């Protein structure tokens, strides 16, 4: 059974419909890239998948032993107040909160998990640093480590590389690819980087006036791919 199945999903805010008639599914180990123009409803879709907003119609079914609180997520923008005092370690550890349930304190196992994920993201030496004093790329890694603490199954990433330099972007993509390939964590990633989407994804979901869902090969055959082709400095890649 698939980990996540969306049937005939309609999303929006209050009465305003943003997207409708959405059908797709994610199996264990898939790498789904969601692409589409600004304002087409990608972030809204992600929030709906996370249960932060209710779908207006249709169903989201979780399967394959995936529970709603086992989804890790990297927000598009984390609005952290300029003066919020929080160390990297505290933030990463807060990703384990879902495992605690009603237990008030973190167990040794959770602390190890946080340490492991910090090592994975190569931020162990930043662990005592204050989050708001880090660079954008470092902050992104901290939030990714937090997301990894929350899940072992499915990771939702909303434009993880926006604002990062090409080198860090590549590193981050490799990290995500590694997590997907070698640890079997399914990935749903929103991205405007079509080249990367085509390179790393196994499936593509295009949202906009027309909808498309299929494997990468299908996508490359479709006419949406032709219209929404990746460009580099204006040149097709």
């Amino acid at each position, binding site marked *: 059974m698939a980990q996540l199945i969306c049937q005939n999903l309609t999303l929006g805010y209050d009465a305003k419909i943003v997207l409708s008639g959405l059908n797709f599914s994610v199996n264990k180990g898939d790498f789904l890239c969601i692409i589409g123009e600004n304002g087409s409803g990608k972030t809204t879709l992600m*929030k709906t998948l*996370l*249960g*932060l907003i209710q779908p207006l119609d249709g169903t989201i079914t979780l399967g394959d032993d995936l*529970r*709603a*609180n086992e*989804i890790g*997520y990297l*927000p598009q923008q*984390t609005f*952290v*107040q300029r*003066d*919020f*005092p*929080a*160390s990297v*370690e*505290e*933030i990463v*550890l*807060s*990703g384990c*909160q*879902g495992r*605690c*349930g009603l237990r*008030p*304190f*973190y167990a040794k196992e959770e602390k190890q998990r946080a340490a492991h994920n910090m090592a994975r993201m190569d931020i162990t030496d930043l662990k*005592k*640093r*204050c989050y708001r*004093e880090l660079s954008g790329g470092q902050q992104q890694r901290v939030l990714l480590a*937090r997301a990894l603490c*929350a899940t072992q199954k499915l990771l939702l990433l909303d434009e993880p590389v926006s604002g990062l330099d090409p080198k860090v972007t590549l590193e981050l993509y490799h990290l995500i690819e590694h997590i997907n390939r070698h640890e079997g964590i399914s990935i749903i990633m929103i991205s405007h980087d079509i080249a990367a989407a085509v390179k790393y994804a196994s499936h593509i979901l295009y949202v906009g006036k027309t909808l498309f869902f299929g494997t990468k090969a299908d996508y490359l055959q479709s006419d949406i791919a032709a219209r929404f082709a990746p460009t580099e400095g204006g040149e097709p890649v």
Partner: protein
Amino acid sequence: MTALFDTLADYLRYPFVQHALIVGVLISLCSSILGVTLVLKRFSFIGDGLSHVAFGAMAIAAVAGVTNEMLIVLPVTIICAILLLCTGQNARLKGDASIAMLSVSALAIGYLLMNLFPNSGSVSGDVCTTLFGATSILTLTKTDVWLCVTLSIIVILVFVLLYNKIFAITFDESFAKTTGTRVGIYNLILAAIIAVIIVLAMNLVGSLLISALVIFPALSAMRVCRNFKSVTICSACLSVCCSSLGILISILASTPVGSTIVAVDIAAFAVFSLVGRCRSGR
């Protein structure tokens, strides 16, 4: 100098001074640990708003002739706190507007009631007492002290047990929600204990100065500390020191308790700002 200490030692033998110190320390401890969260959630003014609500409720209790006014004041304040904190981000009225609205309405209605029924209770006698705390902390009864001690211990216990959850929901409420934290319930508990603290603190510094007790230690700690845990601990210690110092000074110099404590808090803030400035300038 020794003469000063002798007088102090003399005073410390009186039970009313001991009571004032115990209550002062406990209340400042509670309000400062919650202050960190409130400041970060942009609810610095909730202390003011709720204390005005408590003031209005006190007036109602006095008019209605209820002898133990806590029976009315505490529930009303808790309900208002919950309404304010739990409407959260998608409320029509933004946090600051709703707090301002609530606080002025409560103040106006309370004062109006006291003027309409001038002979009904003790509160109408001296509005200043309720607003500035006056010297009521030096006239605490044993029951007051016990009530304060019990409620403070409950608040501290709840805070310690929920510490990690409070951090998670303060830092990123959406993320906490997706990991299965029951954000709604914890916000509710938080609102309730905040209301309890505000009502308690009204005895200490009066309703006009509560915000100082809530925000100053947190803001001072945030100048120098860089993570949530150390900010919380630092602000708690600082607040306890400032309040004890303030109470002692006010006894020695016979100044109003509430304003003296706040004055010490302001001085501490200035010192911490300076230290913070020097550190980051390094």
